[in-house]
């Protein structure tokens, strides 16, 4: 099964009900079922770039879900290479469109909708942070390209030789690009291997997820981000005095 084909991917996640989802301009929106549970679905595919119109289309589905389907879980699929870096997108305020999408997801959370993310392909930078990383639980297929940017790009911007960054990445998973290192940092809960029964896994995550952001604690436990949790808690403790 070729999970880079959106229709195959949707069949894998939602079975027959995947066919009712709208896949248009590399965006996925609609309602489907995970096993027998009704869910709302928003997502990207084909490694697309997210622009202003795309953010609004995803936001529109979230608003519809809040209005018409109380407490229905929202499944967020991510396969996007980043935000559209065009002059018009920036002029029109892409950052604010992303803030709007995040605010819609926040109201959904406040109203009791569970937010579950699965990175299925590319899950990079602004495209990931504007919806996927806002999930209560964030999962990734082991084939997903999750991260900030590849080392070559980091090297070009920072002027630090790629060889230096690559060598450092062996002991510093924050520099490594991929689902596994991202999981070590606490950014992904679990990496799903190719043979996993997705609907069962997804149903279990939906059932067990809670709302608190436990990524810093996870990053400390797994050793990929050793300081964030303690520094956050230190600020909370010092400010309580």
């Amino acid at each position, binding site marked *: 099964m070729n999970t880079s084909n959106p229709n195959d991917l949707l069949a894998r996640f939602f079975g027959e009900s995947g066919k009712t989802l709208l896949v248009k301009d590399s965006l996925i929106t609609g309602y489907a079922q995970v096993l027998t549970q009704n869910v709302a679905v928003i997502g990207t595919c084909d490694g697309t770039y997210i622009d202003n119109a795309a953010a609004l289309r995803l936001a529109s589905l979230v608003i519809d879900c809040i209005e018409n389907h109380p407490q229905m879980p929202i499944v967020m699929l991510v396969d996007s290479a980043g935000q559209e870096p*065009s002059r018009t997108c920036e002029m029109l305020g892409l950052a604010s469109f992303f803030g*709007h999408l995040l605010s819609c997801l*926040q109201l959904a959370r*406040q109203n009791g909708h569970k937010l579950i993310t699965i990175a299925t392909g590319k899950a990079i930078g602004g495209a990931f942070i504007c919806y996927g990383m806002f999930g209560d639980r964030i999962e990734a297929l082991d084939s997903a390209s999750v991260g900030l*940017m590849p080392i070559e790009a980091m090297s070009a911007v920072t002027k630090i030789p790629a060889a230096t960054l690559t060598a450092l990445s062996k002991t510093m998973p924050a520099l490594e690009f991929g689902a596994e290192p991202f999981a070590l*940092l606490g950014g992904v809960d679990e990496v799903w291997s190719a043979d996993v029964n997705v609907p069962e896994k997804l149903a279990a995550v939906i059932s067990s997820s809670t709302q608190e952001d436990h990524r810093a604690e996870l990053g400390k436990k797994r050793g990929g*981000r050793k300081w*964030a949790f*303690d520094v956050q808690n230190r600020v909370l403790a010092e400010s309580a005095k």
Partner: protein
Amino acid sequence: MKRASLYHEQTARKRIASLVDPGSFTELLPPPERVVSPYLPLLDIPVSFDDGLVIGRATLGGKPVYLAAQVGQFVGGSVGEVHSAKLTGILKAAARDAIPCLLLVESGGVRLHEGSSGEIGISEAMRAVFECRAKGVPTIAVIGADIGAYGGMGILVTCCDFRIMTEHGRLGISGPIVIEKWMGKQAYDSSNRALVWKTSGGKTKYLLNDADVLTHDDSASVGAAIGELLSKSQPITLGGLKTRQQELEKRLGDFGKTSDPEEIWKAFGIADIGEASLASGPEFVALAKRKTP
């Protein structure tokens, strides 16, 4: 006679001192605690005692606030693991104590040197902003430095209740060099300051209602704007989101076909582009006819 320094020229610590009631600021995780980046030394880059983010508590006009001020000169104000954890911590403290949180933003976004740790850290800070919003605790971002608020920080400020900008501030995700690389110098010349500021600067953001207030580039004006907003918050409601959705759809409809910010200025009643370009924040506000929904 010494001219008072402009907001965009001030260091983070000077900005705090200029805004808060004299002597009221207590820094949290102050420099002697040496909560520094564990990663930068591995790259032979000097650390900073505050990792580029000064946090603490103060009063503004007698009202308690939590604050976080970014240090733009330190690795471009970029956000690494410790920096983002301080930011998340102070926002969580604000939510816990129901005390407004003020963010003095000056950042290019995630600190590349620390890879994904800064990216996840900014996402955690976003969740903390929304924790405040869910409890009706005001979050106010000031974007008045030349570096602006870009990348993940650009997105984060749009999650706050309010944004105060000056004509020096810029708000976006992709910086000018990235856009130039993507589109070519013909389509977008990143060295053209006027173009960059018309695309992403405070004046245009104010017209589009992405900035709530456009003030003078000085602490007194910024402080006055903050004071007005300290007792307000913008709860997230279904009605509010639907209004904003319509507003953004209209924006796309009205201006989506152009790449020229001057079209936006003209549409909002700016008759003389040259005059408006040279105007200060408040002068620009007077020249424009912005309609807020």
